């Protein structure tokens, strides 16, 4: 058996046969993330056996990589002393991370086993809004004073650095705990030992506030290419730091939220398989209902133009194509603008630039679709009159123009009225554009019938 490349079955055999020495070796050599993956497939008894026999530091690390389901099961099963050791070894921002998702009973169980100072720190972190910078911060950083000499500073790095989340950058505060500068460790190592921190620190500080939204934090990291950012409170006192690896996870979560909104799903946390049917149902049904009811609009349009469809029933055949094309064009434009807002800081002041761009793009795409569609109908459906073919294709052209304009502008309007742009796209745009497309179509048909048929 190759201990570096175990299958799940082999891993279970090791547990079953209580091969403690081999298991210790596995925990020593494997990355905790890989072990955590295996744990999701094990029974509770098997995991508990591992947590009892393997070195506490290693099991605690694995714990922080486990899925929330596994974490919940473990906390439930753990004894008081086991929770105590866990709290000693898991980083506090990770502790808070899983506490936020645990049921109240288990949160209480964890807090009961924390020491006074631990409890205090956890409570402070828990008091921040889950989507704020405060909830992401860790308090384990190296803090220097402006009057420190470089020698004292390096000593401080040695003392505080062991537990710190990052020592690459150290933070300088004055007597009132206000953040006044940052120093890179490499700067400290390459400078003369007698100079004051004051002289080598960078005073132009990029920081975030505890209350800032985490999406803001991501933007700051990506704009300024940072690996760590200090978090300050209203008085500009340093309360913690956020490291870039925590932000990476936020990017993924925010992206999922945006994508869910764009598909008409109320965002929720948790992976597909872990989420219950009921939670999924709740996240999906509101938009389905809203959109179905608002489709009454298209129904009413159809009804009020019934005399036209009765006169020329072949018009109905083209409704799906018209609607699909309209919906697709609208969501193409909105997808690009929504992403532009979240990545390239597209803003309401760019409204006319966007409109102009969509206008040009839509005229071009519309023309191509017009030609292709006329040719297609003439070749494949010769029974349909050329006039109808042109009518339908013209309707497609105008629909594309309008769909692109609506798709491009609605997300920006959402920004203006402080609604999430992603929520204004996809389904909403489709419904709106469908109705508009049908109105254009029937009006053109009415004109055609009047002029050329009667």
């Amino acid at each position, binding site marked *: 058996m190759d201990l570096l490349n175990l299958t799940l079955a082999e891993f279970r055999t090791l547990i079953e046969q209580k091969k403690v020495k081999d298991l210790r070796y596995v925990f020593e050599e494997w990355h905790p993330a890989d072990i955590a993956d295996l744990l999701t497939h094990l029974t509770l008894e098997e995991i508990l056996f591992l947590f009892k026999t393997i070195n506490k530091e290693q099991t605690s690390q694995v714990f922080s990589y486990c899925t929330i389901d596994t974490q919940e099961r473990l906390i439930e099963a753990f004894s008081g002393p086991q929770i105590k050791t866990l709290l000693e070894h898991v980083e506090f921002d990770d502790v808070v991370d899983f506490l936020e998702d645990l049921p109240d009973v288990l949160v209480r169980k964890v807090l009961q086993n924390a020491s006074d100072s631990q409890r205090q720190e956890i409570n402070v972190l828990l008091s921040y809004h889950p989507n704020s910078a405060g909830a992401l911060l860790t308090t384990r950083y190296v803090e220097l004073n402006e009057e420190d000499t470089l020698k004292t500073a390096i000593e401080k790095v040695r003392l505080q650095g062991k537990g710190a989340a990052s020592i690459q950058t150290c933070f300088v505060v004055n007597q009132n705990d206000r953040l006044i500068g940052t120093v890179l460790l490499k700067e400290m190592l390459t400078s003369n030992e007698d100079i004051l921190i004051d002289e080598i620190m960078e005073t132009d500080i990029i920081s975030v506030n505890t209350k800032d939204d985490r999406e803001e934090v991501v933007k700051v990291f990506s704009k*300024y290419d940072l690996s760590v950012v200090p978090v300050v409170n209203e008085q500009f006192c340093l309360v913690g730091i956020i490291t870039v690896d925590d932000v990476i996870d936020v990017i993924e979560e925010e992206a999922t939220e945006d994508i869910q909104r764009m598909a008409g799903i109320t965002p929720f946390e948790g992976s597909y398989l872990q989420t219950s049917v009921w939670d999924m149902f709740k996240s999906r049904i509101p938009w389905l209902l809203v*959109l*179905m009811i608002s489709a009454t609009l298209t129904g009413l349009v159809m009804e009020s133009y019934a005399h036209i469809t009765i006169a020329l029933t*072949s018009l109905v055949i083209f409704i799906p*194509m018209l609607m*699909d094309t309209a919906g*697709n064009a609208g*969501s*193409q434009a909105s*997808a690009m603008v929504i992403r532009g807002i979240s990545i390239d800081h597209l803003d309401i002041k760019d409204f006319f630039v966007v409109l102009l761009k969509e206008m040009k793009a839509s005229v071009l795409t519309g023309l191509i679709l017009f030609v292709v569609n006329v040719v297609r109908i003439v070749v494949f459906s010769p029974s349909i009159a050329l006039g109808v073919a042109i009518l339908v294709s013209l309707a497609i052209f105008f629909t594309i123009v309008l769909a692109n304009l609506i798709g491009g502008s609605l997300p920006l309007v959402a920004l203006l009225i402080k609604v999430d742009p992603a929520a204004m796209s996809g389904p909403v745009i489709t419904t709106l554009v469908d109705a508009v497309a049908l109105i254009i179509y029937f009006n053109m048909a009415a004109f055609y019938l009047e002029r050329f048929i009667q």
Partner: protein
Amino acid sequence: MIDFAQCNAEMIRDLIQERQVKYLRELFDEYNIIDLAEMVAELEVEEIMFLFKTLRKEVSAELFTYLPNDVKAQMITSFTSGQIKSMIENLYTDDLVDFLQDLPANLIRQILKEADQEQRSEINLLLSYPTYSAGSLMSLDFVELKAEDSVKQAIQKIKRQGKAAETIQVCFVVDLQRNLVGSVSLRTILFAQDDATIKDIMDIDVIYATTRDDQEHVAKMMQRYDMTVCPIVNDELRLIGIVTIDDMIDVLEEEVTEDIQKMAAIIPLEGSYLESTLGEIVKSRIAWLLVLMVSATLTGGIIGGFEEKIALIPALSFFIPMIMSTAGNAGSQASTMVIRGIIVDQLDTKDIFKVLSKELSIALLSGSVIFIANMVRVLIFMPETDITVHIVVSVTMFIMMVISKMVGGLLPLLAKKFKQDPAAMAAPLITTIVDALAMLIYFTLALAWLGL
């Protein structure tokens, strides 16, 4: 005194016009260079040229790094060879290469002419990697230690090489053949005894990537293992460069953008919305529009088959849009969840039955709610239409809820099974497939129940 907090492009322009050299230097020393670069980008080329002459070389180089690419290209054409030389001496090689990749060949030659031998070979090396590979993204400025070094020697090396390095948080250890043999964090070095050797304190199972690995792959790996730096080796396992996690933020953001574009039936487009040209935008959109327009003929054909019956009861056609969009929405809700699951949570084809049973339960629930809501809706808004038509419509919606959710859950997994991109293949097609099925079921039911 000038209030730097109020700084904007106009103020910089005024300072340049008044030739306020001292204030300009002070401003660029104090204020964040990335914010300043945004303002400078709005200035005229002559004004920017003046800035570059005035500011310290390192500051100019940093400013240059953060200017948009089109401004950079303009600057390069206006620079003297001396200016280009000092610019490339002060830039990080990976930043330089990043921007060279977008330049026309004649400008690249102009720049390479000014680089010294060593720089030129470094640049050429980085330029030789494919655009999306780890090699093209990596930095060559890192601290390299030997396994036999003592801690004291290592600290000396870090002090010497560290200033130019991208990061010193983690240093990489090589053997005599420059093969990567371990990694050691600065923290470990600082806390070790001076006379210990690096070999004893280094971590030997290093996670690494090769120069040819895809950037996305490296980003995912670093994310999974919470790495801040990843060593990049060549095929012979020689250490070539490093990639830091802050570079990966952009890679991850780009990847998300690509996925969103694919799901919105757009062929992924590089570059931001405002920077993309009209031709690029049209090209990225037209393909799927055409495919979907033509495939919607199928739905049209189905309706066409029932044309005579529709003529008998025109009210049937009123509900076509609603049935189609509800089915489409339900399908894309399911496919979105499953696509995201595949990308983020490693949802796999072996989970197919779990997914289907979950979607079935959700569909039965949603279908019942939709059925009731629709009956209530039509009774309020369209009381004069035949009640049998309403029942046909509502039953169709219930059935479609089930079918749409199943198809939406199934298609992305099938795409994965056949090694296609789930986001690109499944999302745009769902609506078309579901639409056709919806019309088929709707009119078949109507025929049966209304006795046409």
